[in-house]
């Protein structure tokens, strides 16, 4: 089995398509981007994830050419972009508001960028038709933007920005205006189109689920800096910090004091007089330092009796149950006042559920279930 | 991406210089001591003195003021009624004609309006005087009032009125206690608009005024037909001054109440 995994960032010989080199962006006294360095490779689907005001939109607007870099450099295919105006960049953007021209039809909107290229008529027609087909909009070509639905508008915006065959496509919260169901379908459509066209996509989003679904790599941002860049599974399973662990998905955080235990394991003393929790980690912590265990709720098992084999187990009382359909989350209060969330899949009908409010249960997890974090 | 460029700054500067320089010159030269209006010969307020001695101007000003107050008040009542009918009454016989008659005077040349009203007054044998000017001004001003008020009524949440009815108000009470207080700013600006239109009007007043009821614009017009005069400059300065003070204080009051509302809202969020 030699199926190659798409991971150009691990290949030192690969040339990045985009390079941020010590980029800083200030608006007056406010620093939006703080000395940021990052490479993005060809054919990547790169997600910038973070809360509003974290600088992700600024990064995208600098790539498109709408904001100038205060310090540092942005290179596109090795070329410094500082002096290149937005209309001459091989970069196109899909706007959050879609920014469809209301006075032009769907067809004219898609043709807009091609006309600027002085493309021959027949070639232009063929290209617009190809885009219409790609985004399944053939039937709506003659309509004006206000005569089509939100999902169709989103596809027009995508077709329009892809029509010029950019090296890089920027997507600013592309699915933000759609409802949940449509958003999920569209995510797969986006991935499909990205694969078909082979274009590099950079997407800005505040929706962690969306970024996990579509991206080949996710960059979690906060206050103008990238906190962690990794594949979605790494971001989820091995968050680099409490911030990342908390931002992506649901997590239990237990604070304590670390003491070495065995080869690559630590004991985390989380409460005076209680059995410490044990965890494995590749990190090296100094003796007696403050540390955190971050455990995803679905990695915690709930049982009636104390499990024999588990290294970490504790008894608690169910205070709340959130029924989500496919799974249930139990909020379990353990001695010391801490509430731990544990999730179990609802493989059986609800009426046969084994636990209910006020029940005493045992929570347990393995050595590698949680990540040990320093901050 | 709004970029305020040199082009923007320049065109705004030129635009406002164009709008304000002529009036500024008028104001400055009203303090010129020379009778030759365009040659500066030193500072003087003597034209203001002469203006105050001029009985004919004072009489005309008094007529104009009376006409403006009476006609704008009646126009506000009628215009508000008309706006309410237009926005709220739905269909009724002759609605199209009614809305046509509300909008047509806005685009009608003054000479036609004036002429037609004069012919009416002569036809029914009404002597021309303050009454005829008031009738004429009320008619065209009520249309402006109804446009201003109806634009406010359109954005008015109808459920407020329904809530008042639900809580036991008669339709009249709900209008007085709920609708009127909310549309009051529009009614007031409608009145102000009607008042200024009446103060300003030359053409319609010329047709409908009798010999004993000359208004200020008629007086000014017959004076300036002969050329620029320092007395008129002084009069213009007074009028420009009143309007400027009025508009600026009105906008300051609106701004203050908006700021206060914002502060109160912030306060409400914090507590």
């Amino acid at each position: 089995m030699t199926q190659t995994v798409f991971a150009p960032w691990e290949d030192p010989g690969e040339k990045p398509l985009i390079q941020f080199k010590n980029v800083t962006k200030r608006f007056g006294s406010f620093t939006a981007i703080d000395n940021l360095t990052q490479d993005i490779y060809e054919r990547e689907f790169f997600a910038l994830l973070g809360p509003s005001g974290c600088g992700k939109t600024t990064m995208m607007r600098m790539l498109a050419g709408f904001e100038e870099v205060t310090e540092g450099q942005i290179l596109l295919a090795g070329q410094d972009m500082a002096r290149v105006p937005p209309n001459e960049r091989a970069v196109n953007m899909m706007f959050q508001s879609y920014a469809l021209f209301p006075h032009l039809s769907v067809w004219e909107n898609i043709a807009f960028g091609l006309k600027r290229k002085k493309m021959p008529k027949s070639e232009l027609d063929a290209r617009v038709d190809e885009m219409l087909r790609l985004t399944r909009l053939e039937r709506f070509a003659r309509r004006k933007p206000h005569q089509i639905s939100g999902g169709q508008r989103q596809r027009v915006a995508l077709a329009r920005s892809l029509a010029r065959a950019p090296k890089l496509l920027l997507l600013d919260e592309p699915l933000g205006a759609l409802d949940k169901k449509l958003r999920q379908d569209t995510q797969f459509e986006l991935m499909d189109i990205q694969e078909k066209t082979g274009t590099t996509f950079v997407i800005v989003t505040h929706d962690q689920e969306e970024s996990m679904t579509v991206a080949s790599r996710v960059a979690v941002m906060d206050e103008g800096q990238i906190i962690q860049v990794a594949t979605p599974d790494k971001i989820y399973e091995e968050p680099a910090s409490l911030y990342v662990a908390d931002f992506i998905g649901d997590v239990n955080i237990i604070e304590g004091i670390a003491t070495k235990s065995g080869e690559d394991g630590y004991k985390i003393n989380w409460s005076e007089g209680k059995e410490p929790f044990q965890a494995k980690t590749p990190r090296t912590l100094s003796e007696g330092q403050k540390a955190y265990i971050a455990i995803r709720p679905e990695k915690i098992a709930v049982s009636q009796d104390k499990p024999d084999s588990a290294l970490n187990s504790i008894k608690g009382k169910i205070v709340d149950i959130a029924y989500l359909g496919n799974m249930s989350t139990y909020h379990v209060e353990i001695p010391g006042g801490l509430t731990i969330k544990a999730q179990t899949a609802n493989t059986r009908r609800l009426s046969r559920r084994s636990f209910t409010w006020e029940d005493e249960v045992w929570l347990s997890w393995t050595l590698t279930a949680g990540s040990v974090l320093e901050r | 991406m709004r970029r305020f460029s040199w082009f923007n700054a320049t065109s705004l500067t030129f635009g406002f210089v164009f709008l304000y320089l002529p009036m500024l010159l008028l104001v400055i030269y009203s303090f010129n001591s020379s009778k030759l209006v365009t040659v500066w010969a030193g500072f003087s307020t003597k034209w203001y003195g002469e203006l105050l001695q001029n009985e004919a101007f004072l009489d005309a000003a008094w007529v104009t003021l009376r006409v403006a107050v009476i006609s704008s008040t009646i126009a506000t009542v009628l215009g508000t009624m008309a706006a309410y009918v237009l926005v709220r009454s739905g269909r009724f016989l002759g609605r199209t004609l009614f809305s046509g008659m509300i909008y047509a005077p806005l685009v009608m040349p003054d000479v036609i309006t004036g002429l037609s009203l004069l012919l009416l007054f002569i036809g029914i044998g009404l002597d021309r005087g303050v009454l005829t000017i008031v009738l004429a001004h009320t008619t065209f001003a009520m249309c402006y009032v109804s446009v201003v008020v109806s634009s406010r009524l359109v954005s008015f949440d109808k459920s407020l009125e329904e809530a008042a009815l639900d809580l036991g108000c008669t339709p009249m009470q709900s209008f007085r206690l709920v609708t009127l207080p909310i549309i009051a700013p529009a009614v007031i600006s409608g009145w102000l608009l009607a008042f200024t239109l009446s103060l300003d009007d030359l053409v319609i007043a010329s047709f409908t005024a009798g010999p004993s009821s000359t208004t200020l614009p008629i007086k000014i017009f017959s004076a300036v037909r002969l050329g620029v005069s320092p007395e008129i400059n002084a009069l213009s300065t007074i009028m420009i001054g009143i309007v400027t003070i009025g508009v600026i204080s009105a906008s300051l009051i609106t701004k203050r109440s908006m700021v206060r509302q914002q502060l109160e809202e912030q306060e409400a969020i914090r507590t």
Partner: protein
Amino acid sequence: MRRFFLIFIPYIWLLALFLVPFLIVFKISLSDIALAIPPYVPVIEWSDGWAGFKNFLSQLDLENFVWLTQDDLYWKAYLSSLKIAAVSTVLTLMVGYPIAYSMAQAPNEWRPTLMMLVILPFWTSFLIRVYSWMGILGKEGFLNQFLLWTGMISEPLQIMNTPTAVYIGIVYTYLPFMILPIYSALEKLDASLLEAAEDLGCSRLSAFWLVTIPLSKNGIIAGSFLVFIPALGEFVIPSLLGGSGTLMIGKVLWEEFFSNRDWPVASAVAVVLLLLLIIPIILFQKNEQKSREMDQ
């Protein structure tokens, strides 16, 4: 019952003081001038009943309208009014668009002040605003003084009592009517549309032509009609600034009425002016309706 009064009072008022006077103008335009009080015939003889009314009808004719086409003065006045109104509308657009555009580009906190500066002249007396140009454009006026002082001209220019003075007067007094609708169209313009145009390969200038201008079209049309319609029937500006050098229909009507006391012809002039105005008024209404629909 209450609703009936609410409709009835303004309705009757407008019927009596707006519609009926028009019918009278129309009727008199079909009458003949006479040395009498009122100075036209026929007059309905109510005492004769139906016969008197029939007799009255039979005496009405289109003579005055025929007269309007025969005498040079009238159709030249109509044409010249149309031309002056059209040219000054274009001039107002050229002056007003950059101002409205720049207002829309200005920082948010300036805008209320800029708005007030545009509206303020509107509250000031129209007559005074026109009058203020008399001191500027005259032979010894400020403009000539200034130009002579700079040495650009050696002889004072004759601007007063020419069409140029009328153009300046119309542009000056109607400028706010042009600026406000264009500004409100431009203010609504989503800035990301211009970014999208640039992103798709437009230069700033072509983005302006392809996006800004088409999207402010309704504002341009509204503003143009708001200038054109009143300018066509304008009286004050041509009589104060245009003098004998310009011919405009509003002035002709006025003189026909006050100087010649020919009420039937004055009425006919008014009827034709109204007919001329109906087309732009309908177009204006259509445009307003369209832009209202666009907003929804």
